[in-house]
């Protein structure tokens, strides 16, 4: 098992010059840690069948793989069902207030290079009440991983529509159907110039773990949208991409460096749409009207220009998940706010060598003094 904080792990990064997301965080020494060690003694209290259980299990199993000291990991959450997450992990954690987790995490991540900082949030928490903090964390590129559990409903407040609910959604607060236009979280993150944007699904443990590994290894803000089923208030929201007979044609896996193909028999693919500047789904083959495989769009997550990644994100019309790209949309190198801030403080403190007490005395005295005897 590779530990992502090791030099070996770093070499897997797409950017040789860039530090790993976990660099600076002390590595665990001794026997490998277990999922059990990362589980707290608190009883997990989500509704039976909630997608959050699967994500929690995946994270508890994944965290030991990071090879970091448990005490140097911090989970911060806002308010909502998913935000109970930190209580169930035996790391440091804060269950904060609605929408504000990214700002609290910003303080933690900027103050301390030696901490691995994680934010757990939901579609209402991150995109509605906390929308401002989310976009600013993404634009600053603070070294943290944001897990955005998207169940497309308000669960904790018992079933109102959320900023990702489809238009027309009938809920307690929209008995005649919602007239709100939904956000596409991946498009939003790309618009905010996020350096790492991915989407995964609660029920696909392997894919989820793969995306989490890449997100943790990325230095900067990683946004991972996790489609998560709410069995009580929005059951079946993701049936199109989970049903055995539909998912093959609905899920579009993105793999860096690979042509984008999907379909039950890989008979579909993506090409650029020169008419719109976007991308479109085509049938792959040699028949008239079909497109040969060599003409398909090759996914480049490391492309500095986010245009294509954005175009791919637009394939998903909220409410109609029959075209849903999953995987890493974008992973690019960009300096992080916290590294640069610490570098400024570090260089300023290195530039002085006298005792802080003497320096304080000289600072507060200033230049224009007089003496009263």
């Amino acid at each position, binding site marked *: 098992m590779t530990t992502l904080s090791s030099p070996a792990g770093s070499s897997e990064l797409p950017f040789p010059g860039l530090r790993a997301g976990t660099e600076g965080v002390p590595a665990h020494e001794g026997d490998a840690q277990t999922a059990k060690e990362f589980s707290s003694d608190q009883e997990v209290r989500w509704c039976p069948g909630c997608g959050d259980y699967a994500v929690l299990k995946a994270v508890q199993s994944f965290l030991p793989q990071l090879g970091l000291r*448990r*005490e140097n990991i911090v989970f911060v959450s806002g308010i909502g069902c998913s935000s109970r997450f930190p209580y169930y992990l035996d790391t440091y954690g804060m269950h904060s207030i609605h929408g504000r987790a990214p700002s609290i995490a*910003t303080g933690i991540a900027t103050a301390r290079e030696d*901490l691995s900082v994680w934010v757990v949030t939901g579609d209402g928490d991150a995109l509605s009440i906390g929308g401002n903090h989310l976009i600013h964390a993404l634009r600053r590129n603070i070294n943290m991983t944001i897990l955005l559990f998207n169940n497309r409903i308000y669960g904790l407040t018992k079933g109102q529509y959320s900023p990702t609910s489809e238009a027309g959604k009938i809920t307690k607060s929209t008995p005649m159907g919602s007239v709100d236009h939904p956000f596409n979280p991946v498009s939003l993150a790309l618009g905010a110039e996020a350096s790492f944007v991915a989407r995964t699904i609660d029920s696909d443990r392997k894919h989820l773990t793969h995306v989490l590994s890449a997100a943790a290894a990325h230095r900067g803000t990683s946004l991972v949208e996790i489609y998560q089923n709410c069995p009580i208030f929005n059951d079946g929201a993701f049936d199109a991409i989970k049903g055995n007979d539909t998912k093959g044609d609905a899920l579009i896996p993105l793999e860096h460096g690979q042509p984008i193909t999907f379909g039950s028999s890989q008979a579909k693919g993506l090409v650029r749409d020169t008419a719109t500047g976007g991308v479109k789904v085509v049938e792959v083959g040699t028949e008239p009207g079909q497109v040969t495989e060599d003409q398909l769009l090759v996914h480049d997550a490391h492309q500095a220009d986010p245009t294509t990644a954005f175009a791919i994100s637009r394939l998903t019309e909220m409410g109609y998940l029959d075209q849903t790209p999953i995987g890493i949309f974008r992973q690019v190198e960009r300096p992080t706010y916290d590294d640069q801030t610490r570098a400024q403080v570090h260089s300023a*403190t290195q530039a002085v060598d006298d005792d802080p007490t003497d320096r304080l005395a000289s600072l507060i005295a200033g230049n224009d003094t007089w003496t009263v005897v």
Partner: protein
Amino acid sequence: MSKQVKQLDRVIIRFAGDSGDGMQLTGDRFTQESAVFGNDLVTLPNFPAEIRAPQGTLPGVSSFQVHFADHDILTAGDAPDVLVAMNPAALKANLPDLPVGATIIVDTADFTKRNLDKAGYTSNPLDKLGEVDDVLGGFQVQPVDLTGITVEAVKEFGLTRKDASRAKNMFALGLLSWMYGRPTEGTIAFLGKRFAKVPDIRDANITAFKAGWNYGETTETFAVQYEIKPATGMPAGTYRNITGNLALSYGLVAAGVRSGLPVFLGSYPITPASDILHELSKHKAFGVTTFQAEDEIAGVGAAIGASFAGHLGVTTTSGPGIALKSEAIGLAIMTELPLLVIDVQRGGPSTGLPTKTEQADLMQAMFGRNGEAPLPIVAPQSPGDCFDAALEAARIAVTYRTPVMLLSDGYLANGSEPWRIPEQDDLPTIDPAFATETNHEVTAKDGTTSGDFWPYLRDEETLARPWAVPGTPGLEHRIGGLEKGEGHGNISYDPANHDLMVRTRQAKVDRIAESLPPLQVDDPSGKAKVLVIGWGSTYGPIGAGCRRVRKAGHDVAQVHLRHLNPFPKDLGEILARYDKVLVPEMNLGQLSNLLRAKYLVDARGYNVVRGLPLKAAELAEAIGGLVAEAEGLAPGELDLTPTPSS
């Protein structure tokens, strides 16, 4: 030519002009010169919220008042002895504040038809000097073409007339510096540094400044020079001039040094607090991190995060920002993390008067959160005192693991006074006392015991919980906004536990009173029946008002509160000692309400909410009225004329 020199014990000068005329800079330099000269002084800057309000209009007038004296003074003065007016609007706006006999120096250049119209003058008041309808009849008016002489003086630098005329404020400063015998080296050095990159502008300003001085010295317009000797009776020590925002910033840097904690400021720009953000941004060499957040909430959120991570989290703002931060402050109360919340109060409600002072956020600080959310409150009483108040707020926050609100205000923030620079050894030491060990023993089913960490197990004396920062092995724990079980800190919905925790959080704040020194009651004769009690920036005006009453031969006691929550332990007993209690405030009676509620005392309010500091003369009247009542006299029957000193 030798001129007459008159001795004065104190002078109040007000520089007034258009927002773009550099009046704040002029006043600031005059203050600095006076400070270095050794006068005691207090300043009152007053400026519009607009960066460049419409030129030449009354709302666009910016002024800077400085009161300096040969003895210890407490306020910026009620009424200026000298007004320097750079245009008709500045004259008109400030005239009502002048006492009869005041000196007015006006720049005649700006008294054009257009400017007179803008100021609402139908004719030029300077044309009527000495005539029957002279509106300036009661004053000594000195019309000088400040602009014209300045332009002439700086001709050699080849500046445009517009640029050249901008040095007129330095000409005025030079003239006033001559009149009051101010030392000039500091200003010349300051101008050299400030305009180092633009030699023409630098030289023009220095030349204008010197020309102003020489104008006073050589022309016959100004026949008298005044001398105000350095102040006596001030405690021995090294002094500097300092504004409240600067002193507060230094206090925060000092709190970092004295606690060994890196300071982390999360802040969003807001008047009149932004200067603290600017100042702290310069002090990275002290390990200070500043984060300019996307909004007020993110500012406090990041500060809370930094505190959780073991830094000294600070957030700075004004009243509207406190409103936005309230929920996050509640989180800091619930998670019991150290946090400094600095509120530089301004006129409210809503956007209110952004550049004016007020102290109407006391109730917001006390109660402006959901639930029972007690929070310690401290307030500085003068610009220099902001330094000590910041250190005291940090001591309480770190010792008791709690957010602390510091209530400064716009007057303290921008006003200045001579400040005795403290010795490092006299500053408090603040011990973060981080938790490093488990604090609780658990017994497993098989009977074996092991150490566990309980984040809400409290110190018996302070009731503070342990501060265990991430990175400390074995102390992993989770905190949050949900109610905690006492001790173990896990989520608890138990009714009895909630009642206990609500009371414990209150008790923890109440315990702070145990650490406070006794109040200093200023009651020189010991015979006063009236006590005047205040908090914050009203200290100066209240003190000056009390002095006036005492000079007229009456007794009055004064006490000023640094701690608004909890109140000092001896406050109730002190209040009970006096027949009458007067509470002057720049609000509608917030402290008096708190005193009435807690001590069942008939605290009377003296409340003025003009966006300006209280006036000493008005306070003396109010205090006198209450003294009369205490003596059984009718209001107004008490003679407030000063008695000849014995």
